[in-house]
């Protein structure tokens, strides 16, 4: 009962934050609210027993992503301009998609059901075997690094590739600025010579 209450409270706070994000015109407050949203999500993850995920979400969502978005709005614009009225089409799209998703959940097992198919496949085996196989208390680490090592290698490569992509997109202007500096220095030197 208390779990349901906590879940509903956190959910209400998340929806409020999301609605303020929809309404707000100032991008600074949008970015800050998205940080708040991430922290609330982290709380939700703790309530759902996913402590590792909560840790990651708190560090990534509230830390790095806020910094990067602030960096972006510092380089672009502070406010959102008024968009042309879109009519009812977005509401229709959202309602239809939402209804389809709700229809999809109807034959899902209940929340927290220990007999759900997700808990019958490999997970109990991982939980039972990691004690002798790997001897590491944190089962999430054991699965992440050992049982599912291939996945994690792929994810690391994806992070690396995204980093390379950002560097390729954003590091072109550096050179030009250095050239400008050289020009300025040369100009100054030429002027000094003229004066002499």
């Amino acid at each position, binding site marked *: 009962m208390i779990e349901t209450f906590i879940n509903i409270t956190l959910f209400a706070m998340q929806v409020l934050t999301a609605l303020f994000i929809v309404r707000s015109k100032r991008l600074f407050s949008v970015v800050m609210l998205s940080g708040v949203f991430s922290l609330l999500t982290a709380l939700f993850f703790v309530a759902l027993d996913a402590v590792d995920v909560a840790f990651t979400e708190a560090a990534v969502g509230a830390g*790095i992503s806020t*910094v990067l978005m602030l960096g972006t709005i510092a*380089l672009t614009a502070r406010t959102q301009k008024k968009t042309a009225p879109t009519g009812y089409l977005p509401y229709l799209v959202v309602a239809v998609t939402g209804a389809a998703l709700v229809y999809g959940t109807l034959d899902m097992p209940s929340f927290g059901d220990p007999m759900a198919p997700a808990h019958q496949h490999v997970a109990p085996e991982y939980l039972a075997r990691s004690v002798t196989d790997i001897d590491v208390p*944190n089962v999430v680490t054991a699965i992440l690094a050992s049982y599912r090592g291939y996945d994690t290698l792929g994810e690391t490569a994806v992070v690396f590739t995204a980093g390379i992509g950002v560097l390729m997109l954003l590091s072109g202007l550096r050179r030009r600025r250095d050239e400008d500096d050289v020009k300025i220095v040369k100009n100054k030197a030429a002027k000094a010579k003229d004066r002499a």
Partner: protein
Amino acid sequence: MHHHLILRVVTKMLVGTIILFALYVQFHGDFSPGGGFQAGVIMSVAFILYGIVFGLSQAEVVFPPWLVHKTMALGVLIYGTTGVFSLLLGYDFLDYGAFSPDHPSHGQHWGIFAVELGVGITVTGVMVGIYYAFASRPPPMDDEDW
């Protein structure tokens, strides 16, 4: 931010603590929540905080961009090398039992250590690299216009 005295002093105290916490999360990830991904993010936060408060040029003195770029690749390399190493020892790719055939779970400990280290190094490098890339663009307006 030359005039924010409190910010600068607090930052100086915090940066070391954050790095220590990142190392704790990295190497204690087997026993408590945490691991390479989280440690990498926290470690990069230390450098980003330093860069925000003391300016990008100061941060680039501490952690130069060429080193950041090497770091990004180094982590993936450590991860892949761990797999290839176990392959060379006659086991499957990323089968850490290879590192201690008499006592497979010790081998698993070594393997998880190496792999998490690789993940942490790559994530640190990528996050700091992305921050440098964003921060080194010339802003269209000055700080005073905010």
